[in-house]
């Protein structure tokens, strides 16, 4: 007991002599070279974060004039035109000048973007989950890596190749064979009624986008399924449950929130997809889609499509207008990414593929 008391006195004396001990404890063993290295590495680490901030700030600043000009019409109006770029007069709204007749209503793009990605999600989620379950449960283990290659291929095939295939092969084939059949569902679902068009439109784009985001959802699901403890599954099987019942009772509850997170990330990718949509959407401006087969345009596709002509606007407003729709895309993307990542963090999945399923 006496020794203990003497000891604590020594602690106090020693502690008094260690200024800033807590802060330094972690890096007290760093040599001078270590410190230099750490600083250099920190600079590298700051790059992605700074690029993120820079891009966001640049987009928002660039978008502001057009957003002010359009005001609330931005979200509700259907007409998106840069106006008469060669006219001498100007339109003025909310104190901002734009070429005569300019109107920046983004409703068709926003709706087109959300609708096409929603169609993609409705198709991709069940297919991805089903395919992964088949891959893990039905396919013999030695063959699994060979089939997994297809996921990597789908993730790696460039979006222009999807566009090429969609516009020359898949779209026409669907319009000819599948879509006329689907119109019969129009009795129940009005948006499924014809006409079906030539195969460039919402549904075709949705199919292609689905294929593009399958790798994200599927590869995440595959990792999730691997985290399900074998003991729990074997326990259920030992109780005489069928494999389907085991899945419902054990596996699915385990991976459900992870699938939700992966779906959100997949959706975020679908709304940002540019080239394939540009090639397959039918590229229709200023009109809301009449049915699920209608041509449309998305935000990303429109930016690529119109940036060329926007550059000829002497007032610069056209470029601002494209930035404005870009900001909508950016906000939706970042928000869904954050939500998805927070969800994933909750289910504690360390090695989530960043953004795509490679």
């Amino acid at each position: 007991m006496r020794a203990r008391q003497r000891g604590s006195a020594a602690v106090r004396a020693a502690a008094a002599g260690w200024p800033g001990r807590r802060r330094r404890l972690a890096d007290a063993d760093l040599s001078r070279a270590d410190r230099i290295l750490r600083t250099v590495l920190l600079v590298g680490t700051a790059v992605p974060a700074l690029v993120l901030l820079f891009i966001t700030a640049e987009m928002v600043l660039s978008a502001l004039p057009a957003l002010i000009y359009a005001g609330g019409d931005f979200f509700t109006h259907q007409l998106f035109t840069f106006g008469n770029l060669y006219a001498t007069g100007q339109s003025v709204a909310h104190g901002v000048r734009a070429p005569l007749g300019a109107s920046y209503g983004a409703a068709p793009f926003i709706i087109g973007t959300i609708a096409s990605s929603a169609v993609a999600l409705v198709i991709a989620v069940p297919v991805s989950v089903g395919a992964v379950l088949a891959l893990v449960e039905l396919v013999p283990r030695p063959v699994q890596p060979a089939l997994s290659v297809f996921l990597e291929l789908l993730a790696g095939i460039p979006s222009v190749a999807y566009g090429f295939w969609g516009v020359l092969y898949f779209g026409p084939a669907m319009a000819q064979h599948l879509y006329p059949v689907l119109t019969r569902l129009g009795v129940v679902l009005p948006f499924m009624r014809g006409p079906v068009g030539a195969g460039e439109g919402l549904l075709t784009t949705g199919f292609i986008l689905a294929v593009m985001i399958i790798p994200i959802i599927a590869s995440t699901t595959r990792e999730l399924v691997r985290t399900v403890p074998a003991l729990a599954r074997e326990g259920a099987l030992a109780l005489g449950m069928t494999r389907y019942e085991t899945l419902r009772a054990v596996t699915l509850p385990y991976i459900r929130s992870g699938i939700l997170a992966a779906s959100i990330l997949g959706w975020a990718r679908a709304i940002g997809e540019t080239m394939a949509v540009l090639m397959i959407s039918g590229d229709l401006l200023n009109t809301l889609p009449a049915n699920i087969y209608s041509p449309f345009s998305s935000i990303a596709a429109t930016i690529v499509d119109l940036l060329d002509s926007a550059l000829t606007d002497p007032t610069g407003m056209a470029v601002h207008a494209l930035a404005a729709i870009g900001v909508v895309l950016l906000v939706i993307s970042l928000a869904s990414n954050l939500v998805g990542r927070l969800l994933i963090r909750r289910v504690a999945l360390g090695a989530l593929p960043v953004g795509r399923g490679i």
Partner: protein
Amino acid sequence: MIAGVNRFLVPRFPAVNERARTVEAVAAGVSAAGASALARTARAGTGVAVDGLRVRFGAREVVHGVTVGFHAHRVTALIGPTGCGKTTVLRALNRLHDGRPGVHISGSVRIGDEEVYDPRADVRDLRRRIGMLFQRPNPFPLSIRENIALAARIHGLWSRQDAAERTEAILREVGLWEAVRDRLGQAPFLLSGGQQQLLCLARALAVEPDVLLLDEPTSSLDPGTTARIEELISALRDKMTIIIVTHNLQQARRVADEVCLLLDGEVVEQAPADRFFQAPADERSRAYVDGRVG
């Protein structure tokens, strides 16, 4: 403060001085090799004094003011049931908790007359002087030769010219030379677990530590290698202070000169091994030795 710690060390552990005297007395009539080994031994040994050590992980304090001394040239066994904080204490001695987030350490650890937690302390040199062997062998993904020479070269103890010679000497010392002499350039992962642990011991010895920390070093090994490592521990005692964490009372009996029992993050009793095992002073020690606790 230095004087204070010495005062604290000396009266409680008179054995240090006794041993040094014995060594001087015999030093006269031995062989040349023996003489040099004894000369090293005769050098004032480096004891370790822990004073009021507290370790907290976040809000949970696991070591509650441990005060204990470890003699130079003696083997002290830190024993106690799982979770009593013995490994935590051991890892505090060479500041291995430092990088871990949420760790808070207070109290004093002295090696010789140097404060380990002094902010001006050269942590890397401290760690060089405090060797450590872990529960499981952790050889580096380098060749066997580089595993041993890397740290010794970095610390400037070995030169390019004498590295080969000294590698051989140290491998001979731990009894691994014959097994690895033909594959010094290969990765160590093909060695058996026991051989890997001996390699790690050789690696630690190469940087000439004054203190050797052993964290259940034989818990994953076969009986043969365990015996070999215990032999080495006994032999190394002449060169350094040895602290071994073990949950194996038989092992403590075999190798330790001194035993320190920890329960729930507090020292229950520290005593010479014979006395501790034959007539423990504390009722809880008696219960632990008899197998009634832990």
